[in-house]
């Protein structure tokens, strides 16, 4: 039995297309589970057009999947290759869908290893793959070093130490009773595990914050209906990307367009339905859709109609969800109407004001957007290195700790069994930081207890 594994086979940067590869028993079944529209089974070795889920809300994107049955695959086992749109959030979403189906992220070189074990690769091919993997691993080593110097590794290391401390404490109570060493009590263990699981959750939460991709940058346009979002979008791209009118609520579906920024950068700007209380089902749906985009953690340009009263605009700005406001930049629009007061422009710190119609302030806006994006891009060494595989390890670790805690709640689990579970959790963590030595447990025991007869 080969465990099902999944990995992105193309580089993790935006590209028109990306290839996701799966291997192992049950991987075709996992694929079928996330292409709900497909009623018939896919013909092996035959590329099939499918719609694949990438979002928990049931959103799907078109893709091409090819399945392989043993022994006719790269590894010799059951496997799947899927060509999907190359947008990183979509790719990440699809990988997440597979993880929910119980497919584990592959470790580096694991496909190749399976191919060797399955006797599917001859030596010359093996060597060329070797060269590839080597390059990949050298990059991985460099990346790991950045992680090691970063806060993330520090946190993982700390959680790992807490787990190992607990294991050592339990082990000491097993191996050194002759020396009067008492192991920890049940409730002590339970509260330790609770704390460790919480620390992992906190770490996983932090990963969501740092989720913006440096290469796939997006800015969301938001504001009251009729604040001029669509007009601004059209002015930014230089064509009529979005339908505009004088009536509020013209935009219902998000409209995406790519905008060129000086000195040569690009950004996807997304025009969202306006910020207002929904009165009917369509508006409600439009608002929900906007809010989903807004929760994604991406920067927001919040448009304020300069023809409105200053108090109203200030109240509107401060009523924004703090999480969105933190990521938002206020922008005064319609300054060509000439009603904007000086105090209004200074009230919003950045003092950005444009007229999409006259073009006034547009060059400054673009420059500002460029700078702003550079600032908002997470620095390398933090969230970026929090790879799919690492997230997978952390999630599994958390799950296994939750299971242990549930066991403990039922009243009785014996130390020698508890240790098996905890070590398994630790080895999942250790896969992130790459340290797992039984000797360390003994070292910890010796550091803490007075042993010897």
């Amino acid at each position, binding site marked *: 039995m080969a465990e099902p594994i999944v990995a992105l086979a193309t580089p993790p940067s935006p590209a028109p297309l990306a290839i996701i590869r799966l291997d192992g028993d049950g991987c075709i079944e996992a694929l079928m589970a996330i292409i709900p529209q497909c009623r018939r089974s896919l013909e092996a070795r035959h590329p099939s057009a499918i719609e694949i889920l990438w979002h928990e809300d049931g959103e799907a994107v078109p893709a091409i999947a090819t399945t392989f049955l043993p022994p006719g695959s790269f590894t010799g086992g059951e496997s799947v290759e899927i060509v999907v749109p190359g947008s990183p959030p979509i790719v990440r979403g699809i990988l997440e869908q597979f993880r929910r189906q119980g497919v584990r992220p592959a470790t580096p070189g694991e496909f190749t290893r399976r191919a060797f074990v399955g006797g599917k*690769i001859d030596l010359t091919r093996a060597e060329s793959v070797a060269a590839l*993997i080597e390059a990949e*691993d050298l990059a991985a080593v460099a990346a790991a070093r950045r992680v090691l110097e970063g806060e993330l590794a520090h946190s993982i290391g700390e959680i790992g130490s807490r787990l190992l401390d607990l294991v050592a404490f339990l082990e000491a109570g097993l*191996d050194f009773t002759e020396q009067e060493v008492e192991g920890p009590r049940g409730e002590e263990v339970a509260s330790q595990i609770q704390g460790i699981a919480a620390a992992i959750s906190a770490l996983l939460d932090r990963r969501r914050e740092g989720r913006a991709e440096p290469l796939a940058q997006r800015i969301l346009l938001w504001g009251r209906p009729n604040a001029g979002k669509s007009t601004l979008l059209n002015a930014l791209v230089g064509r009529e990307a979005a339908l505009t009118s004088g009536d509020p609520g013209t935009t219902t579906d998000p409209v995406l367009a790519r905008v060129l920024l000086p000195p040569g950068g690009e950004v996807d700007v997304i025009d969202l339905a306006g910020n207002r209380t929904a009165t009917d089902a369509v508006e409600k749906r439009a608002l929900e859709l906007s809010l989903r985009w807004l929760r994604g953690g991406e920067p927001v340009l919040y448009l304020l109609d300069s023809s409105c009263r200053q108090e109203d605009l200030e109240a509107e700005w401060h009523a924004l969800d703090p999480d969105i406001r933190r990521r938002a930049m206020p922008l005064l629009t319609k300054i060509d109407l000439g009603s904007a007061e000086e105090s209004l422009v200074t009230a919003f710190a950045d003092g950005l004001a444009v007229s999409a119609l006259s073009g006034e302030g547009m060059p400054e806006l673009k420059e500002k957007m460029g700078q702003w994006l550079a600032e908002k891009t997470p620095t390398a060494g933090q969230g970026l290195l929090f790879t799919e595989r690492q997230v997978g390890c952390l999630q599994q670790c958390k799950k296994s700790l939750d299971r242990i805690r549930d066991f403990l709640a039922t009243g009785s689990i014996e130390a020698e069994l508890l240790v098996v579970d905890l070590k398994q959790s630790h080895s999942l963590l250790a896969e992130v930081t790459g340290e797992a030595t039984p000797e360390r447990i003994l070292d910890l025991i*010796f550091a803490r207890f007075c042993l010897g*007869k």
Partner: protein
Amino acid sequence: MSAEGSFFDVVVVGGGHAGCEAASAAARMGAKTCLVTLDTGTVGALSCNPAIGGIGKGQLTREIDALGGLQARITDQAAVHYRMLNTSKGEAVQSLRAQVDKDIYARSMQKRLVATPGLTLVAGSVEDLQVSGGRVEAVLLADGSRITAARVILTNGTFLRALMHTGESTAEGGRIGEGAVTGLSVALERLGFESGRLKTGTPPRLDFESIDLSRTTIQHPDQEPDGFSAFLPPPRRDWMVCWITRTNDATHEVIRKNLHRSPMYSGVIEGIGPRYCPSIEDKVVRFPNRDGHTVHLEREGIDSRSVYVNGISTSLPADAQEELVRQIPGLEKARFLRHGYAVEYDFFPPHQIRKTFESRAVNGLYLAGQICGTSGYEEAAAQGFLAGVNAALNLADGPPFILRRDEAYMGVLADDLVRCDPREPYRMFTSRAEYRLMLRHDNADLRLHDHARSLGLLTEAELERVLQEKEKVQSTLETLRRIRIGGKDLLSILRRPGATFDEVEAASPEVAGLSLDERIRERVRVDARYETYIERQLEEVRRLKDLEEWCFADGFDFDKVPGLRGEAREKLVRLRPLTLGDARRIAGVSPADLSLLMVFLSGEKHRRKELG
């Protein structure tokens, strides 16, 4: 007896726990064997504490027994006090410990060896080795005589360039009243072996008559112990008790005052002592806040007045030892029969041996026991047994005998040692055995039965008895798995905490009808308890087995593999793993390093695992 000019298949150097097992196993497997030791009167001696077994160690003793070795049988003949340890914990971490009569133990061992056909005991000091074409040919004794040997097993214990320290005074020797061996270390270094220095210590021995027992607490033995050997009836005799007392602030004060006179702390001892069996000086220094440390008083024999003061191993000067002992309740008027001392000795880091205990540098030369940097009678015996068996198999062109980590503590020991660069003596703990739920002392005989049969060191009747029991346990487990009551199979009912076999029998007439004896019922109950966890572990074993199939050829150059991280490369070069599985167990080798190694290996003309 003189062996001058004679030829032996196997020459074992040293008559301690490793040497006895090695010589006995080799001879009984058909090799013409000679055991050379400084003094044949001290063969089988227990140099330190009068006890066999303990947590992690008792498992080794049971495994040696299951394969046909001696330690368990001799212990059962000499035991005066048995205690099952960790009875409040699960069966997988319980172990048997026996206090023994040292005289009876050594005499029983000697008697056993003398009666072994094909085994000759010789008194002498082996000072040199003759090696030709990378293969050992003979050993040379201090008196100038030469013994030709096809295989040589060195089990010199603590005797190589040994120094004994008591306070400021130092004497040559590996055990009180005995000498040291110097030439052999030189010979090994000349052959390219890397050597190191380790230290161990032993506490004072006091006169039983001088101890005030009224100020101590009695520790009683188990009343109906099973004994160690699966092949002897449970031992029944008048058991001895032992006594417990405790050090206190006054004791510690004496130690602190004299610390500068302890060779360990004044820098005289170069070797490194074990953290788990520290001297009382170490304990006081490392744990200044403890107000006392437990002391066990163990008589060294039924007729012996000598009491082993377990817990205060020391190398302080004699006057300081006397002063500190007199601060301990019950020992105020204690008479010293012998002072405690530390021994410092040469060892040869075991990454220089293979899992068969044959050295990598010289064919036919085996190292086993404390010479490999371990500590403990049980660890030594296990190594000696494996070395003796492998030397005999190798002579007969048989396949090597290597136990895996998931098969036995002995497998863990051998596997740990070949990758080990010990900074302190290596000792077995249950936590070293990742598969300890399977490797229990209670199932050693059943678990190792197939291996025992292939080695042939047990009698046909003994093997048959184990086989019958094994089949009985297995068929009972099958039955329990098959019968379902209320939607649950009986095995899972038996697995519930606190469940008893009686409940299962009450629930199922079929099981009751088997009328199983208590021994089988107990075995089945313990197996049931661990079953789900063991299944998980077996899955892991299977997953990792792939890695064991990938071997590094002799002399594989890890420096040639591109992309390895510095730490991993350094460790690999030094410890020379045989397989990817070995490499994985080296601390500092990451999954990415493993992938690189695997890919590189595929490019090499890698061959199937060459065992040993």
